[in-house]
């Protein structure tokens, strides 16, 4: 998802740049108490961890693999503000130091890969923690679902930006269905990895997981109420399945895959299959412009809601002084 220079129009790049800069400024302010404590080296080494974790490929299906984005993982480990900063630095360094992603594309790359994943993931994570039991399993599960959701949110945000600043005439509904579909599948991998990493860290150093405040460390791993778990799993897989169903295969780089998928569909429409089922398959009931715009509206609301909630939690926690070390202090 490291978009190159000129992938979206200039105004989109500037608008997203302003949003990203705002989010980074807010996070800098929120994490000041921690960073003033000269803990910058810790943030730096964690950033190196996220960078390295992105290099570990995981198998998605036979022959294809994906890699971690890490926004939600960093947020759960370090808290939303420091997590956002760390992933933003990773994305910025990848652009400036490794030419991975355009310099003028930093606005939307940081927004999609750091801001939306960290804040959106944190919002989902906090929401789930209210429902799930305060045990290591509950926290890992919440982190996993939040990470999966964060990847889909990120792809939704990208589709929205495409709506406003497309560099080529590919209609929104097509970009959206393909992006969200492929990323739902990538999200499954992201979710499983995040849950696994959090579980592993909780087993060794539970004090390092910022999102695991107030967990019952004495509780065994099998304390999860089965009904709730099944309900949550069904709900999550329903969301994923509705979008994934149309695209049975995944690929490490979603955008690349999207182009391929839609390319195949287009080719199918124009050639052998003419106006057969494949034509309907491609547009799947979102043929008209109004419907497309309505979906865009819903998607926009969803993304804004998630990111806004994350931002709100970030600010509120700071005001109440419950973030940072206060949360980690052993409660009576």
């Amino acid at each position, binding site marked *: 998802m490291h*978009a*190159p*220079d*000129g*992938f979206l129009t*200039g105004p989109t790049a500037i608008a997203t740049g302003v949003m990203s800069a705002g989010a980074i400024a807010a996070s*800098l302010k929120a994490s000041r108490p921690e*960073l003033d404590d*000269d*803990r*910058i*080296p*810790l943030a*730096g*080494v*964690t*950033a*190196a*961890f996220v*960078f*390295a974790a992105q*290099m*570990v490929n995981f*198998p998605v299906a036979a022959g294809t693999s994906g890699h971690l984005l890490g926004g939600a993982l960093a947020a759960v*480990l370090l808290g939303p503000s420091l997590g956002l*900063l*760390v992933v933003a*630095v*990773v994305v*910025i360094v990848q*652009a*400036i*130091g*490794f*030419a991975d992603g*355009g*310099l*003028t*594309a930093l606005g939307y790359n940081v927004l999609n890969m750091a801001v939306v994943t960290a804040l959106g993931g944190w919002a989902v994570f906090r929401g789930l923690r209210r429902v799930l039991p305060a045990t290591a399993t509950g926290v890992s599960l919440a982190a996993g679902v939040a990470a999966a959701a964060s990847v889909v949110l990120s792809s939704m945000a990208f589709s929205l930006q495409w709506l406003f600043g497309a*560099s*080529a*005439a590919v*209609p929104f509904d097509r970009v959206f269905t393909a992006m969200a579909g492929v990323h739902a599948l990538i999200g499954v*991998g992201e979710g*499983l*990895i995040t*849950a*696994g*990493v*959090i579980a*592993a*860290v909780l087993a*060794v150093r539970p004090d*390092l997981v910022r999102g695991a405040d107030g967990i019952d460390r004495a509780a065994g791993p099998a304390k999860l109420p089965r009904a709730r778990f099944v309900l949550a799993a069904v709900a999550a897989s329903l969301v994923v399945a509705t979008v994934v169903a149309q695209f049975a295969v995944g690929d490490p780089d979603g*955008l*690349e895959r999207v*182009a*391929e998928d839609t390319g195949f569909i287009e*080719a199918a429409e*124009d050639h052998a299959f003419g106006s057969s089922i494949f034509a309907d398959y491609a547009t799947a009931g979102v043929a008209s412009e109004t419907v497309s715009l309505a979906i865009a509206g819903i998607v926009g609301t969803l993304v804004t809601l998630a990111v806004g909630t994350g931002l709100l939690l970030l600010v509120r926690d700071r005001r109440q002084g419950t973030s940072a070390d206060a949360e980690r202090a052993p409660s009576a």
Partner: protein
Amino acid sequence: MGAGHTHPLHVHEHSRTHHLPAHVKVVATLTTAGLVATAPRDDVIAFAGAAVVLAAVARASRVPGRFLVSRLAVTAPFLIAALLLPFVASGPRVDVVGVPLAVEGLWGALGLVSRTLLGATASLLLVATTEVPALLRGLERLRVPPVLTQIAATMLRYLEVIVGEVGRQRRAMTARGYDPRWLWQLGPLTAGLGVLFVRAYERGERVHAAMLARGFTGRMPVLVAERPATAADWAVAMAVPGLVAVARTVGAVVGGAEAWA
């Protein structure tokens, strides 16, 4: 990975470009990338002009062409996506050897490929001619918050160590005959990543303690003071985006290739 602490993308040379103050180069690179990124997709004169200018910079900085081409591979996924645009885009089509391609998609692909390659070349030239500490100080001079540049500095310093750790984990796994291929074999990989995080964090704690012991007060000392930028520095560096701007003006006057077709 290279030896020691040199950045893998740095090309050690002593050209005029290498000796320019970093913040001047950052501004010039950003302006160039911005000019290229906002050029109309059919402005072939601007794209060709920028290509010639960047090639000249590479030559003057003694950055080998082969190095640039191999490093541009990072943009491959997007190049492939761009090349698929003619098949995906909507609108009228044109037959190319019997394959109907979208006219919109063809122009879109031209614009995307040109912008991607030229933008990436510009930023590659920046890292190839600027050492990482100088680059980070240059960013600070451009008002990037020091917290961010310091996180980046620590990250780059320990990246090799941690990536090496990933490699060792991988080797250990392979040595024990484990080669995960399926999603349900993810367990050991994630456990490894969890351990990696704990190790990275504990290393961070040790590094931090060692830095405090050596008198770290929240800012790294500047060992080699960057010389201030002279008017000549600015003139040389800004000549690059200047020439690209000239090419864009010519392109705007002559009109894009879409009008010729």
